[in-house]
């Protein structure tokens, strides 16, 4: 009896979170896909669906019963969507690269720091991540505005005479993404570098490597797992970013997260926003699966 009960408890440990994630994470994607295949409810007369997934689903779904690929055709016809996807990918890629350029030296410096202060440094990197994302983006508006703190500073010290226009440009988006996602880049690189065996560098230098070539031949390759994890942690969410392009970007900035938000909130077009989300997910599925593998492998090594 006790054995049966404990086996049951063991099962529950798996079943409860599994069922939760299936219901609240996985199934919703199928609903998104399902609705992306339906027509905007008011515009089209209903017709028989190809097959019926939504047996008991009531309300709005009832009205959206018909299947069609029209929303996807719509996405390909309107060049706005294509441009938004492409420019999101480009902006995310450039920002990821910039974050790596800034984050690597920080992680490297932290890993080289005296052992006694490392926990404090680690804490200081994590702390901004716990403060609101929205607040951190908002803080940059006051700095980047034409009459903002950065321009005041530069003009006072005579570096420029005319205020720089940074807010509402892509530059502001790069700054916003680099700033917001920097801890995600620093942490995995730091943990890769910290584990590194320092005698390898000494060996390389004994064998005649200059410090620079020892870095590129030994340190950097060994930090690659951290670099890959960091880049994915920055790149994937940045592609679908909404808050940063909305607050720091200009009207000409096209990013797909913002397009989806507008489609949904301003145009109230659920099927088209579902189609936008489905395509975005398809674009990101490869990096996401790759990220899961990296993560699972890292956990396996920890054992």
């Amino acid at each position, binding site marked *: 009896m006790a054995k049966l009960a404990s086996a049951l408890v063991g099962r529950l440990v798996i079943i409860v*979170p599994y069922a939760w994630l299936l219901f609240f994470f996985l*199934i919703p994607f199928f609903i998104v896909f399902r609705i992306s295949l339906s027509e905007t409810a008011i515009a089209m007369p209903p017709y028989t669906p190809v097959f019926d997934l939504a047996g008991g689903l009531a309300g709005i779904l009832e009205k959206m019963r018909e299947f069609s690929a029209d929303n996807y055709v719509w996405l390909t016809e309107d060049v706005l969507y294509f441009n938004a996807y492409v420019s999101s990918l480009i902006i995310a890629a450039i920002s990821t690269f910039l974050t790596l350029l800034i984050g690597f030296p920080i992680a490297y410096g932290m890993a*080289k*720091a005296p052992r006694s202060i490392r926990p404090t440094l680690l804490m200081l990197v994590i702390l901004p991540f716990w403060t609101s994302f*929205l607040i951190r983006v908002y*803080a940059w508006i006051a700095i980047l505005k034409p009459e903002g703190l950065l321009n005041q500073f530069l003009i006072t010290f005579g570096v420029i005479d005319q205020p720089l226009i940074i807010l509402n440009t892509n530059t502001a988006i790069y700054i916003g993404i680099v700033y917001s996602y920097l801890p995600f880049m620093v942490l995995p690189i730091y943990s890769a570098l910290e584990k590194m065996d320092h005698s390898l560098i000494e060996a390389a230098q004994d064998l005649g490597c200059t410090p620079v070539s020892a870095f590129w031949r030994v340190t950097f390759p060994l930090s690659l797992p951290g670099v890959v994890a960091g880049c994915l942690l920055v790149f994937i969410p940045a592609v679908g970013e909404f808050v940063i392009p909305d607050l720091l970007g200009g009207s000409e900035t096209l990013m797909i997260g913002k397009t989806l938000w507008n489609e949904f909130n301003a145009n109230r077009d659920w099927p088209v926003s579902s189609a936008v989300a489905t395509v975005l997910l398809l674009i990101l599925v490869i990096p996401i699966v790759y990220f899961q593998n990296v993560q699972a492998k890292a956990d396996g090594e920890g054992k």
Partner: protein
Amino acid sequence: MEKWSRFNIASVVLGFGFLYLPIVLLVIFSFNESKLVTVWAGFSTKWYTQLWHNQGLLDAAWVTIRVGLLSATCATVLGTLAALALVRYSRFRGRVLFSGMVYAPLVMPEVITGLSLLLLFVAIGLDRGFWTITLAHITFTMCFVAVVVQSRLLSFDQSIEEAALDLGATPVRTFFAITLPVIAPAVFSGWVLAFTLSLDDLVISSFTTGPGATTLPMKIYSQVRLGVTPEINAICTILIGIVALGVIVASIVTKRREVQRERDERAAVAASG
């Protein structure tokens, strides 16, 4: 050990300056007398007193705190279970899918998570509002808890658990007597992380909310779109203060527990020797 070179020190100092300067400026200008957030006109706390008379803001803060407390607590239970399932059961049907569902939400763009949860709530006919936001927050924060707890479980000496089981303790008793006390700091920091993520969330809340349930980030966002004001700086400063306090308390608790554990281990070694 190689010495901490000037280049290393410079990159750490500059990096931290970059991370903290905007937040520091925001806090400073929340105490500005002038309505302009970029011109200093003397010290004042008037923007803080004004907050107390803004009923809409206080209501939003109350909603946010309730959502945060409830969702963080549920997410901690679910996330800890998920971490146990991942670490203790190396083989079960659908494990690959399960670990995928735990890791994917960490990087999933919020607009996708928000939209898909909204469509789910509409499909099952749930009234949107406080409860739908809470369910949504539980879902995305539990994965962060799972990752935090999992990393602690991985560095955990399983032989103590096996010993307890050999001595006849049931798995449930073993969990509460052995496993939970050891992983408690990680569970606690998982809870704090889930709470702050919930406190912070704008996009997922906006998708899954209904009439009557406005959270603080939604309120801040709608005001930010109208322009930068010292009043928002003041709210932000209070939020930063709460989070900083939470993190400091959490780290002190963790530190104490670690010191205690080391002392216990040393005592055990001394006693057995």
